[in-house]
């Protein structure tokens, strides 16, 4: 066999591997899923499976405490949690499904992020109220394929050492005042804090606002997380930040405050189980527990992840209420797609 033959053979094999795409997951639906009628039956079936693989866009420090509590309540079901962004998890699930080997059982993601999974019918439909007290009424979505888990609002914060109370901007138009021109604002260059304004204001008004905001010569940041750090450090008096980061910085007594600019948008995060999960009962048990009142209370206590909607009674809701902030969330895929489209327009304006 010559070297050329070896190389050509490899080339061919790899070509076949790389190009042999498939549109449908080939792993079979594991047996025994969906037959449990109560949480006790579900636990018994989960124990037989022995473990559950969960991907979550949540810091390991927080998830390890969730795992400890889960293991105490349901010994015999080992939870392996991987901390990965929702977008990367969805991409991984689609790739694994196309490759015919799904390794992930359950996860959580924003409504906008899981659209590819819904389109490919990769989510399991579960009768959640049978297993958990945290999935009633409005908390069930996508026809039982997901449970609304928590909200992540994007807010406009300020540095209290750089800005007097009287100078704090009160509404969106205040950000266009001359006093905030020239490096006075840290703005997320992806525009994900502003896409929803297109739905509320209309496309033209939103685009003009984005252009005016850019004319203020803000400091563009690649991600929200850079905003809170640089705001607290005093690089600029105003920044776009995500609420859970804001809450933690406020708890550290960082010089940050919330502007009353509203409405602000919030991403709705849902918990779900995959249709082809290798451990379907353990996956259901995990999601049922995590979304139960007990699981939600713990999640809020250790990580400030909670529902922000009026009536939820969460600390997050109280914070928003105290700041007199109303939030807007996309409730349907159509709204998600529309918000996404407008967000990309804002991103284009910022990027040009």
């Amino acid at each position, binding site marked *: 066999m010559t*070297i050329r033959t*070896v*190389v050509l053979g*490899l*080339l061919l094999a*790899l*070509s076949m*591997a*790389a*190009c*042999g*795409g498939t549109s449908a997951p080939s792993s079979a639906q594991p047996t025994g899923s969906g037959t449990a009628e109560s949480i006790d039956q579900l636990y018994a079936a989960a124990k037989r499976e022995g473990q559950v693989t969960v991907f979550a*866009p*949540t*810091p*390991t*420090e927080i998830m390890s405490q969730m795992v400890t509590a889960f293991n105490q309540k349901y010994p015999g079901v080992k939870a*392996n*949690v*991987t*901390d*990965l962004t929702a*977008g*990367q998890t*969805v*991409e*991984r699930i*689609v*790739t*694994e499904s*196309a*490759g*015919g*080997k799904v*390794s992930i059982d359950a996860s959580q993601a924003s409504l906008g*992020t899981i659209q*590819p999974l819904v*389109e490919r019918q990769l989510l399991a439909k579960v009768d959640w109220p049978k297993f958990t007290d945290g999935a009633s009424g409005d908390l069930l979505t996508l026809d039982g394929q997901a449970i609304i888990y928590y909200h992540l609002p994007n807010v406009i914060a300020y540095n209290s050492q750089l800005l007097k109370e009287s100078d704090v901007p009160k509404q969106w138009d205040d950000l266009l005042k001359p006093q905030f021109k020239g*490096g006075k604002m840290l703005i997320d260059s*992806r525009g994900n804090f502003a*896409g929803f304004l297109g739905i509320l204001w209309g496309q033209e008004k939103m685009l003009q606002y984005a252009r005016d905001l850019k004319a203020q010569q803000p*400091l*563009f*940041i*690649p*991600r929200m*997380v850079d905003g809170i*750090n640089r705001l607290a*450090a*005093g*690089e600029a008096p105003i920044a776009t930040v995500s609420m859970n*980061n804001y809450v*933690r*910085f406020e708890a*550290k007594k960082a010089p940050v405050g919330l502007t009353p600019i509203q409405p602000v948008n919030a991403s709705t995060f849902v918990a779900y189980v995959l249709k082809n999960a290798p451990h379907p009962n353990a996956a259901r048990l995990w999601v049922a527990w995590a979304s139960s009142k007990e699981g939600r209370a713990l999640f809020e206590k250790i990580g400030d992840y909670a529902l922000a909607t009026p009536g939820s009674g969460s600390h997050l809701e109280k914070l928003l209420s105290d700041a007199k902030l109303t939030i807007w969330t996309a409730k349907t895929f159509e709204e*998600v797609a529309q918000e*996404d489209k407008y967000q*990309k327009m804002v*991103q284009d304006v910022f*990027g040009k």
Partner: protein
Amino acid sequence: MSVALPALPQRTFRLPSISGERLIVAAAGGLIAYFVLAPLLMLLFSSVKSTADRLPIEAGPLTLQNYARVFLSAETYRLLGTTAGYALGSLAIALTLAASFAWALERTNVPFRSVLSVLLLAPLAVPSMMMAITFILLASPTIGLVNVILRGLLHIEGNSGPLSIYSLPGMILVSGISMVPSMYLMLSGAFRNMDPALEESGAMAGASMRRTFTRITLPLMRPALLAACAYFLIIMVETFEVPALLGQTAGIHVFSTRIYQATHPGSGLPDYGLASGYGVVLLALAAFLILAYQRIIRRSERFAVIGAKGYRPHTIDLGMWRWVALGALLLYLAWALVLPLLILLWASLLDFYSPPGLQAVQRLSLANYSHLASYPNLDLALKNTLLAAVVAAAATMLLASISSWMAVRGQFQLHALPDALTFLTLGVPSIVLGLALIFLYLTLPIPIYGSVWILIVAYVTRFLSYGSRIMVAAQVQLQRELEDAAKMSGGSWPQVFRRIVLALLMPPFVNGIVWVGIHAARDVSLALMLYTHDNLMLSVIIWNAWQERAEVGVAAAFGVLLIAISAIVTFVGRGWAARQTAHHTMREARVQGA
């Protein structure tokens, strides 16, 4: 004056007829092809797949739309213009500094050489994102430490300026400075291996030190310098952190920020088609550079300076200029290592970052360091990181050594192909490489998906291009007669390769090990792409602390720890390499004396 390099007969080194020896080269070539072909094929395949709302591995029509989006867009050419200015500017700074430092530290009597050569590599351990942030904290118009000090010294009113890091010159300066350690590592082995006899001849003929440097040293270093230029030009075009944090802040956009936007959408799946279209532009640039490079080294004998005559290490006496060289090195280290390290140390002692000042001093504590010890799964991450760094570095450099030997010495068909292929992988964006590997190992019956071994494969694939460049540049310095003599004395090919080639090229080989090991340990993009519960890496923990929890203090504490570990590893590795080289030189001298 010019020096005539020794003319050597054009002998060919044919592959031995023994099948076992052929097999080693064939196996190495096959392994390299195995590593690099999947990502290359995935890139080309993705570039012609319609990837609207789907991944390239899913069923979908073929299309040229991605190329149309890339090549028919005026934005592409605008981005290319800015990118070219940014990349070439950074390259010019890095090359000037790295080549000067390599020459000074390897060939002259500048004081404290061994310590300085280790310190010069210490910034390698800091992840690029962290390095970019430290430069913001140093030179941001408002909170930058340098600006705060300058405003005080120059009595400037207001809370902004006088310097701004958010500009194209700022980006070029930061990137150029950040690239010096990697480039120094690539060049220092070649400078160290150079036979000083030619320079001595020049000096004896009355040439000044500058003339000797420009007319003898630099021409002999041409393969190493060109290798570094080719490699780092592509790297600069790809680099994301500095353009994202410094350029984007000021509204300056380059090629890599566009790829990032395509592959990190707010919702839905990444736009692999567009990212691959841009990747193919990089691939074309890489192909042009590698072909030009191989053409230049075709007559490798012109650059061969390590011969059978043996030579003793010799240092050039700089006289009083050695203190000037020391000053330049210290100035660089102050800007590239000391100030960022001080900023990292400062940040690691705070719960949230504040510029140095009396108010912040009251908040200093060691809480972030004590937090490190209790970090969940830290032991697993350390074990995985160590394993991935060591195995990937060793495998990469071994394969790179063989592929470079094939490229320089091989006389069989396609002998230079593995080397060219490794270089082409530079054009493959990390996200495409990650996708190719996931899909490949979901499909092949090789159970490494989800384990640390898939990361090792990824790192070998990603870093082979660096290993090859460093080893090809060193290989062309090696005169053929050494291997011929060993062969004629009855040595088998593996013996000749191990005891002659690798032994003489130990300094660049170890430099490559250090570079690959550190880069594998600090990589974030592939580690995140292939991340599961079992193959957690330290870099992922740092990234998550920084990017999800906004815990700059914890991430900075990890950064300080990484710098300390990498300094120790570098010191030990380079010390070992120096001892090996000295041992080899002494043995050679003894043989000659006998």
